[in-house]
């Protein structure tokens, strides 16, 4: 069984083909990276996968269930979690309340203890009672990451989760990702940080102009000409 199976996914905005026919599979317990220059359609892809926007055509299967065209909350309830590129904390709530709010659609009775566990794992227990709006950028990303774990989703989409985060916090996040992988979680990760991609991703998908231009290990990707073209922008032949 694959965790996530995408087939010929397309999405256009007016005349612009943001995602122009993308197909790939992600197996259970895999950590797959998605890289590509700005505007290559990575974030749109995530929005399609999480149900935030509907596809123009194509299918998405989550744990072998067809979830194409389902609204975001339905897809989330079926085991998908995601973070956003620009953190989306609940600004009028404290860090702890943010985590509790993230658990409302899951197991409520154990929510409090789970929140404590997440706070400890991410080493943010000391700011648990601070308002989310007062957090620094890095702390907000930690919160974003912590929140997505509260409902224990099977598949987690991380959108540049460590951008602008200091090295220590980044280690914490990576450590947690590995922990969760061991417990059976699957990750799809958008990243610009190549070091991170090399460290943690088993497989990498490279996107450019809405399409997948290459798939492989980090070494294969680094050697590939099309990838280099995509990033450096050699004129189209």
């Amino acid at each position: 069984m694959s965790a996530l199976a995408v087939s010929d996914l397309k999405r256009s905005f007016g005349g612009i083909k943001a995602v122009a026919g993308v197909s790939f599979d992600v197996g259970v317990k895999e950590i797959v990276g998605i890289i590509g220059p700005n505007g290559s359609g990575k974030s749109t892809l995530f929005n399609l996968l999480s149900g935030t926007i509907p596809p123009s055509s194509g299918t998405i299967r989550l744990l072998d269930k067809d979830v194409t065209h389902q609204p975001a909350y339905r897809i989330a309830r079926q085991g998908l979690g995601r973070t956003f590129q620009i953190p989306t904390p609940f600004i009028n709530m404290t860090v702890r309340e943010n985590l509790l709010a993230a658990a409302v659609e899951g197991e409520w009775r154990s929510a409090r203890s789970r929140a404590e566990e997440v706070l400890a794992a991410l080493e943010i227990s000391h700011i648990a009672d601070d308002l989310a709006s007062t957090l620094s950028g890095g702390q907000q990303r930690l919160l974003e990451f912590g929140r997505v774990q509260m409902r224990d989703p099977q598949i987690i989409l991380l959108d540049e989760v460590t951008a602008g985060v200091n090295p220590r916090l980044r280690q914490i996040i990576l450590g947690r990702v590995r922990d969760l992988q061991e417990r059976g979680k699957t990750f799809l990760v958008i990243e610009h940080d190549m070091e991170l991609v090399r460290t943690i991703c088993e497989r990498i998908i490279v996107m450019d102009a809405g399409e997948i231009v290459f798939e492989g290990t980090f070494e294969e990707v680094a050697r590939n000409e099309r990838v280099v073209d995509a990033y450096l922008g050699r004129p189209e032949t």
Partner: protein
Amino acid sequence: MRARGANSARLTARSVIPLVVVVVFLATLPLWVDDYWVRVWTGVAMWAGLAASWNIIGGYAGYISFGHVAFFGIGAYATAILMQPGLDWNFFLTLPVGAVVAGVFAFIVGWPTLRLRGAYFAIATWALAEALAQLVNTVDFTGGSFGLSTPGNAETGFFYYAMLIASALIYLIIFAVFERSRFGYKVKAVRDNEAAAQSLGINTTSVKLQAFVMSAALPAVLGGINAYWITFINPQSVLAGDITDQMVVMALVGGLGHLWGPAIGATVLYLSSTWLSANFGSSTGYIAMIGALLALIVLFLPDGLVGLMPRARNMRLVRQMLRLPDRRADPGPDSDTSRERS
């Protein structure tokens, strides 16, 4: 010095004592004050309840309803109609009827509009109130522009306690549902960041709808009591846009999304308006005043009067000003993601 959660109304010894004082004061009021003041405080109780109901959809859910008077009016007319000679319903039994009818209206109006941006909802609710007022003015069984009378067979004290208990129950319900329950977290999550809430599995439209229906049923009860109290109602008195205006301003002046904000706002504003009409007799001036007040509060004190209280756990304003240089690097969640649901 940490910025603690603003809206968790915790039950500490310090917060209980003022509460007890207020409760005793209100409960014994008719014993040591004359009829005029009992009536004034009946008004305060009513407006405190109305503002709190509006706060459910406006403050907790973050969708501004500009036609909330419609629900107040529905409750008023439900009670008045059912108490007409010929039907002669018991007063207390009319109240749930009004609440249910108002809830149904809210559901019908909310269903297509709450899945859209707040602006559409604001417009639609406003249109509902205006249309309803015009319809009620035209149709027969509501008495048209002539209005309806209700039997005037109860005492000032009765109405005072009826209004007080109804409002107190409203606050209790709001406390239980929005400050202490799972649902409260859902609503606030939807308000603070709808996209994130959806990504966490929350059916945001359904949550908003539930909050809206609740916010409509409660003022209907107050409307019913009011109809019985003032013994005569017509579209001008129970379906006027000014009533919504006051609900909005009271909640905003007191503090949006905070449990006690509406009560504070209602008390301050209603007592001011009573004082103004006693000394200057003008009610149109009052409208100009609350309009200006609303604009000023939004500009300078968006957290309302609760933001001024020394022990309000909301230090957000100070914190924000201190941290502003740090945050400039971060585009901030407000500008992008909350645009979607504004």
